């Protein structure tokens, strides 16, 4: 058994760890709220864009197959945009995504996959496994992501695809389902499929097109892709902070329990010491009499 002095030290260090994890929990909750608000605020826009795309694509019908982004690219490589976190201490957030990625990669030719990465953790993971990280996006830092920069990434992916080196593009990220549920997933991004756009939806009767359906569609599709990137980033960030808050809350609770248990042992030892001393004194006075 540890001495009484060591016990006191341990209680103290557990206490300071508890303070830190509690602070991190609070930081994570405020950030979580911020990203959640942004995710909610961006929803009307993406719904509107997605609605327009599906209505227009049902109007265009078969013409859509001719659009360049609707057929697989000429190359034989696959591009994956992987969205992870910059920092650790967020529970199994990144690990779950990596596990999903490995499952997805199983049976595929890994050497034919290139990666674009958001988040330092993802870059570390992929480089340590010798995967081909073509681009590690650090500017701007993930937490300052806004629509404009997400759009730049979207354009980058689209132009890589249109350049012909790749046959398809995927996004790997953690979808935010609820405060305690984030589902890592790898979803197809390009080429677009009419099904994914909800092409079979309500066929709208002739609306006036200004200037014409095809050119509207052509400028609409890039925007649709941009909103998808933006939403994936926001969802990933929200999941990250939800996950971190949860992990830090668990750590704080565990530290609390540990502190209590240690305090129990410490008090018992202290009492033992006092009793022993008292016995000594009493024994001493008895002997003197």
């Amino acid at each position: 058994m540890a001495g009484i002095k060591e016990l006191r030290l341990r209680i103290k260090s557990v206490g300071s760890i508890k303070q830190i994890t509690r602070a991190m929990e609070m930081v994570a909750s405020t950030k979580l709220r911020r990203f959640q608000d942004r995710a909610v605020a961006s929803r009307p826009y993406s719904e509107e864009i997605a609605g327009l795309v599906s209505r227009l694509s049902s109007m265009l019908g078969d013409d859509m197959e001719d659009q360049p982004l609707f057929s697989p690219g000429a190359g034989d490589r696959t591009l994956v945009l992987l969205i992870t976190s910059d920092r650790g201490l967020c529970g199994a957030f990144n690990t779950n995504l990596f596990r999903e990625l490995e499952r997805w990669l199983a049976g595929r030719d890994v050497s034919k996959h290139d990666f674009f990465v958001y988040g330092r953790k993802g870059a570390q993971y992929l480089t340590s496994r010798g995967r081909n990280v073509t681009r590690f996006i650090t500017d701007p830092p993930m937490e300052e992501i806004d629509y404009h920069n997400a759009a730049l990434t979207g354009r980058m992916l689209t132009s890589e695809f249109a350049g012909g080196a790749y046959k398809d593009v995927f996004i790997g990220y953690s979808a935010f389902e609820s405060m305690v549920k984030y589902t890592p997933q790898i979803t197809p991004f390009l080429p677009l499929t009419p099904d994914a756009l909800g092409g079979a939806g309500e066929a709208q009767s002739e609306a006036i097109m200004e200037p014409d359906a095809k050119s509207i569609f052509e400028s609409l599709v890039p925007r649709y892709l941009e909103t998808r990137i933006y939403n994936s980033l926001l969802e990933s960030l929200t999941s990250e902070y939800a996950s971190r808050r949860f992990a830090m809350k668990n750590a704080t609770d565990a530290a609390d329990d540990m502190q209590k248990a240690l305090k129990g042992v410490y008090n018992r030892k202290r009492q033992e010491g006092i009793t022993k001393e008292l016995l000594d004194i009493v024994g001493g006075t008895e002997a003197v009499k």
Partner: protein
Amino acid sequence: MAGPISLRVITPEAVTLDTTCSSISFPTTDGSVGVLKGHAPMVAALGVGELQLRGDAGDSAMFIAGGFAEVRDNVVRVVTDVSEPPTEIDVERASKAAERARARLETNESAEGEHLDVLRARASLARAIMRQQIASKYRR
């Protein structure tokens, strides 16, 4: 046919305007379009310019750049990248942007190369000028 139509201006960051009014006009890529109650369904690609609306609460305007407008069942939905009411336009920034764009156009346009840069400079010049115009029109 005067009557209420509802208008929603939606950007990636927020819904910046959600109101009803009696008439709306917005800039499309092929010129300005006005919408009254009972307008036929329409989808339009938007240009850079001024979204004007007239309603019971008076007239107001907004700077918008790019995006789409959809008119359906007396609801106008404007989906755009940027929307700024006149009071929020940063005039100083706009005039700096205009200067920069002009300078870039002067050096590049004669050189014939860098086509993309010229296009981009033109677009940014158009935005800056429009911002200045709207700001000077509504801000006294």
